[in-house]
């Protein structure tokens, strides 16, 4: 492909300031995500996957800083953006879904209110219109009874339902890139499968790029076009999924794959 990738991360370094001690969480990460591609960022916990993902729209905690590198998204340099440009971009261009859907939804508002609010945040529509769009979005994520779910609070719904609702909210403004940070880890296996199928299907119909973060190599192999393996803050291996799984270059990738093969999950 000759065209520019949608997201291009070069030599990204993220350091934490822990009361004077500096800790490098991401150490020179370098990868890109093409348009309409599914890239999986895989690695064990603590390898810097989530921090890399948060850095993409500068959502790092206050004691973390991007100390070097560049993040280019759709031709824009994210590290040079002003605060207003960032809030305009978040949710509209780059959206996230997270691990624990219930705690990522506001407990005092209904699902409908929250989805409608996200729509109003980025589009000039009347509240009534936003409400209708919210119902359509819930149908799109295969929620069987949208009207009831619209009027429900997060604690009244199951984990799978909440994750669907959250996906609907994240896709409300048709982002170009969806970053999914272990979105199925807290769900049971059957729901996990449903959510993965749903994501793949939505990706096909809506046409966004997906950066999927997981520690689960089985999922990585199943859904991805490309995998990026992180280990101790560094990207140690990346490439087309088949290539990486067939001939891993880094010993850590080999170890991971062997571990999965040993329990017969790959």
């Amino acid at each position, binding site marked *: 492909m000759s065209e520019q990738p949608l997201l291009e991360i070069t030599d990204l370094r993220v350091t934490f300031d822990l009361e004077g001690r500096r800790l490098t969480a991401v150490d020179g990460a370098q990868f890109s995500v093409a348009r309409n591609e599914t890239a999986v960022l895989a690695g064990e916990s603590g390898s810097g996957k989530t921090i890399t993902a948060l850095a993409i729209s500068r959502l790092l905690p206050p004691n973390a800083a991007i100390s070097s590198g560049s993040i280019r998204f759709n031709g824009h340099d994210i590290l040079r953006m002003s605060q207003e440009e960032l809030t305009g971009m978040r949710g509209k261009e780059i959206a*996230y879904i997270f691990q624990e859907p219930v705690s990522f*939804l506001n407990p005092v508002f209904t699902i409908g209110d929250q989805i409608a609010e*996200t729509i109003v945040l980025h589009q000039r529509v009347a509240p009534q219109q936003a409400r209708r769009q919210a119902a359509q979005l819930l149908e799109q994520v295969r929620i069987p009874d949208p009207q009831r779910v619209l009027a429900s609070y997060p604690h009244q719904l199951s984990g799978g339902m909440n994750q669907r609702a959250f996906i609907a909210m994240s896709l409300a403004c048709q982002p170009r890139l969806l970053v999914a940070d272990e979105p199925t880890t807290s769900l049971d296996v059957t729901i996990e499968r449903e959510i993965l199928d749903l994501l793949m299907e939505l990706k096909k119909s809506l046409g966004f790029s997906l950066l999927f973060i997981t520690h689960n190599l089985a999922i990585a192999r199943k859904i991805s076009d490309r995998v990026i393996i992180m280990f101790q803050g560094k990207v140690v291996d990346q490439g087309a999924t088949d290539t990486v799984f067939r001939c891993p270059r880094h010993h850590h990738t080999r170890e991971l794959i062997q571990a999965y093969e040993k329990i017969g999950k790959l």
Partner: protein
Amino acid sequence: MKRNPYLKIGLTIIGLLMLITLFAPWLRSADPAQIDAAQLLMPPSSAHPFGTDQLGRDLLTRIIYGARISLSIGFIAMGIAVAVGILLGSLAGFYGRLVDTLIMRCADVMLCFPTFFLILAVVAFLEPSIFNIMAIIGLTSWMGPARLIRGEILSLKEREFIQAERALGASDARIILRHLVPNALGPVLVNATLGISAAILLETGLSFLGLGVQPPVPSWGNILIEAKSTLGVAWWIMIFPGLAILVTILGFNFIAEGLKKIIG
């Protein structure tokens, strides 16, 4: 509501009181300052259930009209205090560091002053109008709500859904107003209800010292000053406004207690 007798009793008392003050002109004569020289210091009777004062004014009418003043001062002063408290408390909690230090140290300084004497000093410079009293009480009691809101926001802002909102592109103002404050309101509500009764007591105290609501406008405090001079001959002038204050404060405190049970 079920199994919450405190809330029920409190709401009944305050609800009744509000209805009475709302329909005051229809319940008693429209003029609480009407003087009747033939009826000075009359004890309670069917014409004057609470008796009359040394100018022959009907005490019940004066207490009902006084309730209007006292309740509106209570509500509005607390409204001001809560508004200021939410604003400053949420800024302090959300931005932390220097903003937090500045705002909270100001609150600490304000808390060090005995409020009543601070208000006395301020009133000495300003005209003691009803509006001024509301503003002064409001502006000297924002520290409680501010501290509560700040504490709630300190823990709420670390919650995941705030991060999610940020990822969806919400601005700071939106996060504070739409997501943090509504989640932090519970404890403030309890505090504000108690604050209303504190504000009413403050107003009564000020009026009793002659620095609050000025006669002839009746307030529970200034009815009590008049009672002081005739205490030996007319017990009713002191007892009835006193009871009105007692019942009202009790009502608000019951509501607060009931709310506390629901919220926490």
